């Protein structure tokens, strides 16, 4: 490990001297730095403005009993480097606060407010420090503090309900929608301000499905927590399960057998295809092309049946485990995988030809729900939504995991940022995924598929990233004693991307909201945890 491998660290130390110190890195692609000064703005600005780094996420940890202080962690990455740089910043001595970056980096707006709600640390200088992760009527509790027991029974909520900003003006109306929606989808509240048909402004209220997931990770033994990871966001069960297991494996410092890595890669891509083809149908459906949706959902069903034959569960649950996978495939299953993928590829091509042949569908989707690239960059948008708006990020390529190093694939990027191009990114990605699966399935899947996981000593930290079908999933853990975790931070791509929906709907008619929302298809449960 040479300093040259860490140009960011070198640059930081040159600029800030002893203000930043390097900490022992568990893995060479995960670098920890300790900042002395609680004011992190200078470091963050230097990294983002001058080093072209991106702030991936920020989260807090209650280390009062072990180290007497709360820490914030700022995770950075830069295109071309496979490392993640973690800057650990202490809360000021005796203070329950941290310096907000949201004014400069709006991407962390919600994440900083989440720290306020969950840890009781005040984000100094935050432009909109209202509650986000706990609703306004909650009592004054901070559930992720170590002195808050998870099974606390809170009294009936009597606080003030959330006040939405009023929309004023002649002919301006507010249209409240949710949390229970008209369709079969997850709950959230949308408050539209409209002038006639066009939407002026959308206010979101999420976290209706907050169920204490991060806290629960601290209670369950690791082998049970795998199933909790699979329940963070149901349609991304395998991605979250794999991200969690990767974190455990990194903390345990074990290598996963190649066969298991290849199988994980295949299953991650299957999950991507299932969801993308379902979304393509659903987008067509939302502009009235029902037949396309019927075919798309029929195709999705063939993949669910394949999922079940490969893993025993239609959502790919119960397959991934720390150390590898729980079962290996026999020749019959591999033949079925290859056969189903080949048949699917033909049908998918027909489906896309069908969608593309409909001029009215194209007319409804083009220039609808535009997210401009510069906005997408400011808001830190990731995944499908980011790639449709010029954000060229893909964890599979930038920080390879599982067996992705082995396979070549194209990362589709468009600049237009409308619904049509969010659909087009999905179409391109399905085709790339089919290629990856075909190549991977030709690999000899034999031999070891599950490495033994030794007992992990306490205080091992590990970061894990997976490109779920929506985008970048981050899990960060600190191990505790007795096969338990001290902390598990989950960042679903939806948490970054909700502000993109707010941006994209402006100026569109309210009747187009469903299709715009569908084109992002964000996870409420992944956001709310």
């Amino acid at each position: 490990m040479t300093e040259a491998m860490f140009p960011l660290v070198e640059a930081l130390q040159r600029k800030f001297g002893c203000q930043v110190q390097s900490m022992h890195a568990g893995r060479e692609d995960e670098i920890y730095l300790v900042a002395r000064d609680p004011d992190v703005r200078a470091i963050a600005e230097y990294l983002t403005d001058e080093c072209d780094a991106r702030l991936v996420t920020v989260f807090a940890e209650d280390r009062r009993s072990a180290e007497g202080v709360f820490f914030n962690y700022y995770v950075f990455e830069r295109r071309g480097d496979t490392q993640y740089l973690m800057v650990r910043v202490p809360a000021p001595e005796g203070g329950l606060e941290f310096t907000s970056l949201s004014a400069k980096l709006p991407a962390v707006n919600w994440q900083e407010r989440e720290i306020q709600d969950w840890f009781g640390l005040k984000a100094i200088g935050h432009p909109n420090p209202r509650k986000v992760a706990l609703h306004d009527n909650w009592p004054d509790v901070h559930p992720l503090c170590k002195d808050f027991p998870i099974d606390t029974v809170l009294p009936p909520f009597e606080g003030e309900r959330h006040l939405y900003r009023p929309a004023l003006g002649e002919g301006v109306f507010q249209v409240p929608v949710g949390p229970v929606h008209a369709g079969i989808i997850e709950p959230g509240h949308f408050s539209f301000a409209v002038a006639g048909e066009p939407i002026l402004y959308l206010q979101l209220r999420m976290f209706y499905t907050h169920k204490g997931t991060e806290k629960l990770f601290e209670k369950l033994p690791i082998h049970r927590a795998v199933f909790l990871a699979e329940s963070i966001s149901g349609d991304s069960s395998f991605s979250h399960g794999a991200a969690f297991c990767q974190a455990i494996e990194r903390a345990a410092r074990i290598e996963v057998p190649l066969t298991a890595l290849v199988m994980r890669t295949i299953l991650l891509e299957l999950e991507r295809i299932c969801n993308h083809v379902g979304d393509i149908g659903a987008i067509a459906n939302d502009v009235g092309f029902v037949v396309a949706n019927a075919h798309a959902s029929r195709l999705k069903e063939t993949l669910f049946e394949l999922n079940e034959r490969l893993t025993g569960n239609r959502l790919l649950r119960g397959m991934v485990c720390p150390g590898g996978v729980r079962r290996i495939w026999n020749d019959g299953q591999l033949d079925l995988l290859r056969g189903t993928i080949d048949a699917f590829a033909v049908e998918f091509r027909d489906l896309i030809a069908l969608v593309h042949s409909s001029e009215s569908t194209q007319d409804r989707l083009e220039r609808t729900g535009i997210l401009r690239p510069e906005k997408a960059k400011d808001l830190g948008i990731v995944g499908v939504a980011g790639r449709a708006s010029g954000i060229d990020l893909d964890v599979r390529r930038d920080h390879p995991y599982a067996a992705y190093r082995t396979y070549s694939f194209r990362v589709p990027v468009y600049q237009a940022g409308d619904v049509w191009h969010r659909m087009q990114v999905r179409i391109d990605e399905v085709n790339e995924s089919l290629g990856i699966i075909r190549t991977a399935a030709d690999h000899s899947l034999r031999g070891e598929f599950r490495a033994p996981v030794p007992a992990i000593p306490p205080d091992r930290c590990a970061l894990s990233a997976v490109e779920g079908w929506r985008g970048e999933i981050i899990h960060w853990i600190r191990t505790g004693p007795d096969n338990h975790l001290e902390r598990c931070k989950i960042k679903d791509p939806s948490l970054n991307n909700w502000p993109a929906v707010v941006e994209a709907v402006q100026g569109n008619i309210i009747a187009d909201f469903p299709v715009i929302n569908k084109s992002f298809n964000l996870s409420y449960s992944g956001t709310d945890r």
Partner: protein
Amino acid sequence: MFKILQKSIGAGIVTTAYPGAPAQISNHFRGRPSFDFEKWKDARTGAEVCPTGAISLGGNGDVRTVTVDYGLCVFCGLCAEASPDQAVRITQDFELATAERMNLVLTVEYTLNADGTHRQLRAVNRGFRNAGEDVENVGRKAREKIHKLLGRSLSIREVDAGSCNGCEVEIVALNNPIYDIERFGIHFVASPRHADMLLVTGPVTRNMELALLKTYRAMPEPKVVVAVGACGISGGIFGENYASLGGVDKVLPVDVYIPGCPPRPQALLHGILLAVGRLPERPYHEHAG
């Protein structure tokens, strides 16, 4: 237009015959774990690996009680892997829906050995409970009323009261051409005012409790409530905590419970048809039961 027709004719009829004919399900599918209680010499391994505590141990002195709760089970199959004597087997059973929560719970009593294993099977108690009859009667009455008023059609309002979205994925699949729930005259409606059935996934979070109650109250009588999935039945892996109230019956009277994580579309279909009296309940049988 011609292309669209050609595509549809080419695809043919894909709708499943279920429940008219048995479901065609892969033998890889993990359905209900079945227990051979006579053969089961040590339930500790199963209880240890079970992610949700669906297998739990109790008792005192030389008595060990083992409780198996299919309402908590996420069908991961770990208990079968952890029982080398083949006492726990994974079956392909998925028609587990029931009107009575206690029907999903089995309690078994053993005589405990000094080394922690157990020997003699003393009793197998099925959950059937007389006290539950009232609840069941209410459900039956509602079903009869719905049957009388609406014949055999049904409108469903779905509410996600805190789920991970896994159950929604499968509920949405009921509308695809394969399961095509509309062939039964059953459809999902946008408003609770139009609904006969409330199909709820959970766990019920604190933040969704009020919205769930309001949705229920907005429905006209008679109405039926169906709790979907391990979380909807019992809170599942989330259980009860500062943010989660647990299963749907913590908040609403539930008429039918549909186990699964998530329940596959056929299991949902079975539970929904059961709730409106169009299918009989199918009790499962255990060895030594």
